[in-house]
């Protein structure tokens, strides 16, 4: 990037800058005219200049010019106006000028603002673009939070400055000059005084501000370091807790903040000192005007109208002057910041832009062999990782890399994935160095997975398909309004030098996953998830989450059939007791009392949890059915039993997990409540206390808690109350609940709950697992298995995928690599979070899966256990940084001492 900010701005915006300067110059005309007018008004109509005789008139709006050669030309002879009429006319002109000046200002400011924002967008984009092209080794030295701060915060003030870069000096300089000239014209000596003071300001103030710049730069650096440190603390929070170093971190942060405070305080001191001096100088001038100008007026050498005009004009001088000095300060400040940022983003061996050029065309397969040619690699400390290694991997080869611990095998994996650069030698494909091949080829025809997984925040689906998003493959179709918006987006992107790729297009390259489009993507996803043993996790996620009715239409449509199929299947397997279905007219003993009352899924807070016991309509239903008192007694009973059971236990006791009614912290509250309510009749209990006690009863499930509180009569009453609840439900509650309906999908409930449409019976050995298996079979038979997978894939993985387990993340990374049907699959000690038996299983699955559909990509697998090399045609053995064996598993076993030692 251009190191000089002004030149950078000029290169990209000179047309606009010239335009705005022209507008500013144009705006000077009415601006100057508005200076002259007060004098005309005061001297003319008000003081009576030119109206000495009664009935005298003056010419208004005479438009006539003297041209050279042509002579005097009169365009309009003007009106003849009397004194009052003249006052009115001139005042109107004044008003008109005020409006015109205001409109000019509005236009100029808006234009400048837009210009600045466009440039800011351009700068930020270019910086991110550079980050995307940094050599990978550079990221060992930069802190992500610092880069983010530079792009987000440090260039921000540039946005404000860019619009003003050229306009401001012209505009303000013009204003100041206009004012100064005007003063000069009115009175030469007063003008000279003003000029002298201005000269002092121009020379003195910037000098004083030099220290401010130094402090400003320090402030920028310390603030950036602070955000880097905060980022480190967040990333390393585990290590901080483990080592009890939180106070060390506190001390470090406090010290930094102290330093930042000192710098900022210094800055304030200087800033206000400079301000004081600047203001003082600006105030000196009117003092001299009043004294000297007044004296001249008394002497009669200056008329009063002139003095008023000079003072009025001077009012307009300190403002522009101050702003002009501020502009200069801003310019230097922003230039320093800009240079700082540019310096940070200037890195050697930056990837060339054409390496990442976007292409929508299909990339032809990488036909030739991939080869390491005399490859030598060192770690950052200079220790050799790989020394003079040469070998070839041909299309279709399955090669295992086996190495002693900390050997060259992993480094080779990284070199083949272009993650590290060799010291000497190279990795080649055909005749070209792999590092010179465009990313559109390597990124589409090669795949890589390791145990060092990076995930982006988003859904599982986003992360799984991430390896297929190379280009906007299928443009989004817009309606008319959307198209207008889209066209605007494209135009603006171009104005700011941004690319106009549509993020809303479908970026997924379905062909490279071996399918035709979004409709059959699951034909690719399913076997891949199966191969890495992730499909069960994803399916369970799907079963536990609610579906999106608009997206998962089949599931919603067939829910009735699914439910009856499950019912029939359970019956057939003699397992019908395992699930107790919801039936509109009867009590479900395996569900809570609350669920039985509601017989629906709460969709809003009104009827959820404690809200239910406090809801006025619900309370009225309970009262009318006489159930309120019954549930209250039941709640008291539960409270007593729970307290009897748990009162002696410490709050962190694991037994509390069994207690669904209250948290350990609430036990003393309920103890006190029980004391208070003992023997009190129901009618005299306050409504808050009632709600608290009744709410306890809602969580009760007889077969689970076994307190013996439910009778047939009570169950019937609850079912009756349920009917009454729905019969008279007010409209505002209708949106807060979805009633269970055997033929309708319940949006707010999980997929599993929807299919079961009932509750698992408590206390059936292996019940949950057997029913789950059955549900999965039915989902598959009815063709909605993929939709449930899709529900599971909508799970948000969290920052860096942290909501997944380490093993799940590594499986997902591997799945992402094999989903892309590449020519060269490089797998570098994957799945280290898994036990070796599972690793072995997945390895065999993957080798099988990559061959699906008559494909035969080359596989280069750095195995984590030497025994795994038995599944490969060819094995490369590393001893430290040296390649010491190359052959089949059998030959190496008999001939190669190191391999023998590794395998044994």
């Amino acid at each position, binding site marked *: 990037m251009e190191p000089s900010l002004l030149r950078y701005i000029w290169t990209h915006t000179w047309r606009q800058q010239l335009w705005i300067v022209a507008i500013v110059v144009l705006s000077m005309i009415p601006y100057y005219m508005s200076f002259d007018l007060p004098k005309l008004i005061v001297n003319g109509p008000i003081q009576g200049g030119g109206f000495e005789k009664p009935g005298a008139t003056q010419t208004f709006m005479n438009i006539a010019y003297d041209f050279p050669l042509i002579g005097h030309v009169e365009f309009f002879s003007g009106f003849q106006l009397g004194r009052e009429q003249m006052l009115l006319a001139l005042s109107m002109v004044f008003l008109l000028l005020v409006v015109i000046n205001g409109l000019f200002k509005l236009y100029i400011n808006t234009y400048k603002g837009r210009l600045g924002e466009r440039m800011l967008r351009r700068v930020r984009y270019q910086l991110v673009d550079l980050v995307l092209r940094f050599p990978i080794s550079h990221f060992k030295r930069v802190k992500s939070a610092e880069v983010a701060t530079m792009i987000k915060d440090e260039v921000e003030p540039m946005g404000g400055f860019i619009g003003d870069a050229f306009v401001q000096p012209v505009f303000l300089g013009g204003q100041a000059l206009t004012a100064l000239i005007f003063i000069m014209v009115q009175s030469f000596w007063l003008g000279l005084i003003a000029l002298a003071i201005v000269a002092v300001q121009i020379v003195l103030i910037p000098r004083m501000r030099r220290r401010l710049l130094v402090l400003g730069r320090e402030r920028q650096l310390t603030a950036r370091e602070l955000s880097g440190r905060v980022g480190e603390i967040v990333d390393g929070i585990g290590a901080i807790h483990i080592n009890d170093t939180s106070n060390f971190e506190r001390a470090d942060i406090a010290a930094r903040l102290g330093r930042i405070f000192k710098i900022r305080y210094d800055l304030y001191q200087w800033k206000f000192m400079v301000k004081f001096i600047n203001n003082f100088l600006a105030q000196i001038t009117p003092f001299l005007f009043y004294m000297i100008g007044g004296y001249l007026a008394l002497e009669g050498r200056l008329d009063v109208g002139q003095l008023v005009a000079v003072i009025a004009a001077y009012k307009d001088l300190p403002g522009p002057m101050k702003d002009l000095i501020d502009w200069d300060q801003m310019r230097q400040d922003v230039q320093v910041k800009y240079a700082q940022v540019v310096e940070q983003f200037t890195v050697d061996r930056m990837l060339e832009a054409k390496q990442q050029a976007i292409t929508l065309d299909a990339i032809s397969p990488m036909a030739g062999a991939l080869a390491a040619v005399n490859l030598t690699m060192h770690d950052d400390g200079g220790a050799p990782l790989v020394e003079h290694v040469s070998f070839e991997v041909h299309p279709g080869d399955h090669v295992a890399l086996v190495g002693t611990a900390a050997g060259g095998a992993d480094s080779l994996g990284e070199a083949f994935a272009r993650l590290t650069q060799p010291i000497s030698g190279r990795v080649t494909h055909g005749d070209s160095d792999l590092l010179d091949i465009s990313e559109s080829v390597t990124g589409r025809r090669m795949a890589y997975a390791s145990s060092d997984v990076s995930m982006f925040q988003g859904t599982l689906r986003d992360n799984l398909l991430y390896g297929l998003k190379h280009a906007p493959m299928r443009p989004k179709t817009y309606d008319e309004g959307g198209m207008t918006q889209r066209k605007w987006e494209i135009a603006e992107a171009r104005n700011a030098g941004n690319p106009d790729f549509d993020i809303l297009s479908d970026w997924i390259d379905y062909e490279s996953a071996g399918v035709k489009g979004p409709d059959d993507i699951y034909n690719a996803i399913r076997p891949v998830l199966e191969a890495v043993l992730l499909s069960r996790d994803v399916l369970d996620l799907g079963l536990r989450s609610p579906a999106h009715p608009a997206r998962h239409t089949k599931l919603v449509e067939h829910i009735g059939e699914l439910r009856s199929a499950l019912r029939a299947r359970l019956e057939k397997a003699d397992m019908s007791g395992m699930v107790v279905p919801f039936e509109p007219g009867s009590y479900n003993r395996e569900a809570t009392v609350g669920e039985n009352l509601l017989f629906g899924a709460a969709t809003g807070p009104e009827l959820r949890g404690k809200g239910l016991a406090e809801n006025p309509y619900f309370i009225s239903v309970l009262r009318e059915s006489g159930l309120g008192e019954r549930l209250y007694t039941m709640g008291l009973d539960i409270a007593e039993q729970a307290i009897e*059971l748990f009162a002696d*236990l410490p709050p962190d006791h694991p*037994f509390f997990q069994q207690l669904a009614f209250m948290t350990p912290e609430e036990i003393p509250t309920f103890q006190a409540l029980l004391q208070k309510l003992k023997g009190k009749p129901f009618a005299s209990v306050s409504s808050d206390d009632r709600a608290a006690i009744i709410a306890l009863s809602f969580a009760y499930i007889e077969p689970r808690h*076994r307190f*013996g509180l439910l009778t047939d009569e009570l169950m019937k009453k609850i079912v009756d109350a349920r009917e009454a609840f729905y019969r008279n439900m007010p409209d505002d509650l209708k949106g807060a609940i979805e009633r269970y309906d055997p033929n309708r999908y319940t949006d707010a409930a999980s997929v599993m709950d929807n299919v079961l449409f009932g509750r698992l019976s408590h206390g059936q050995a292996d019940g949950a697992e057997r029913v789950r298996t059955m549900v999965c079979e039915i989902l598959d038979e009815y063709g909605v298995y993929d939709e449930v997978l899709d529900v599971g894939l909508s799970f948000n993985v969290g920052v860096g995928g942290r909501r997944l387990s380490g093993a799940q993340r590594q499986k997902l990374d591997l799945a992402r690599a094999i989903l892309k049907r590449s020519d060269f699959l490089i797998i570098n000690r994957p799945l280290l979070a898994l036990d070796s038996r599972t690793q072995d299983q997945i390895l065999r699955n993957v080798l099988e899966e990559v061959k699906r559909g008559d494909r035969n990509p080359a596989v280069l697998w750095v195995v984590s256990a030497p025994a795994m090399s038995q599944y490969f045609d060819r094995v490369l053995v590393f001893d430290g940084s040296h390649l010491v064996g190359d052959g089949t598993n059998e030959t190496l076993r008999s001939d190669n001492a190191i391999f023998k030692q590794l395998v044994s």
Partner: protein
Amino acid sequence: MMLKEEVGMLRQVPLFSGIEPAKLKLLAFTSDRVSYRDGQDLFRQGDEGDAAYVILSGEADIIVDSDAGPITVAHVEPNSIVGEIAILCDVSRTATVRARGPVETLRIRKDHFLRMLREFPEMTIEIVRVLANRLSSTTAELAEAKSNHH
């Protein structure tokens, strides 16, 4: 069957007979009621022991795999506890327990059981007493068997 009755059943089990009812109630509440159908295994030989079972109703066979195939060595009746050895001393299951007809059990999880022992020493002492009794009777049986052998 409700908590109160379960407590009554637990008191019939020699291991728990000396423990005060309030503690037994907590043990019962934090345990799961699990029912088995005829032929279903409560647990299998070689599995990791994660729970003990109190038989509330029904009967179950204790089966040991031998070289000659599975042999039923004993059967258990209501009010008896099975699987307690494995959770006390971290060994895998020494036998399979299979339901003969429908069986109702109270499944006491290992960590809950150990936690109760830690927190209520009187319960531990009771268990030690029962185990010591068992040991002395086993020793007596062994001595008798040895003297018969000679």
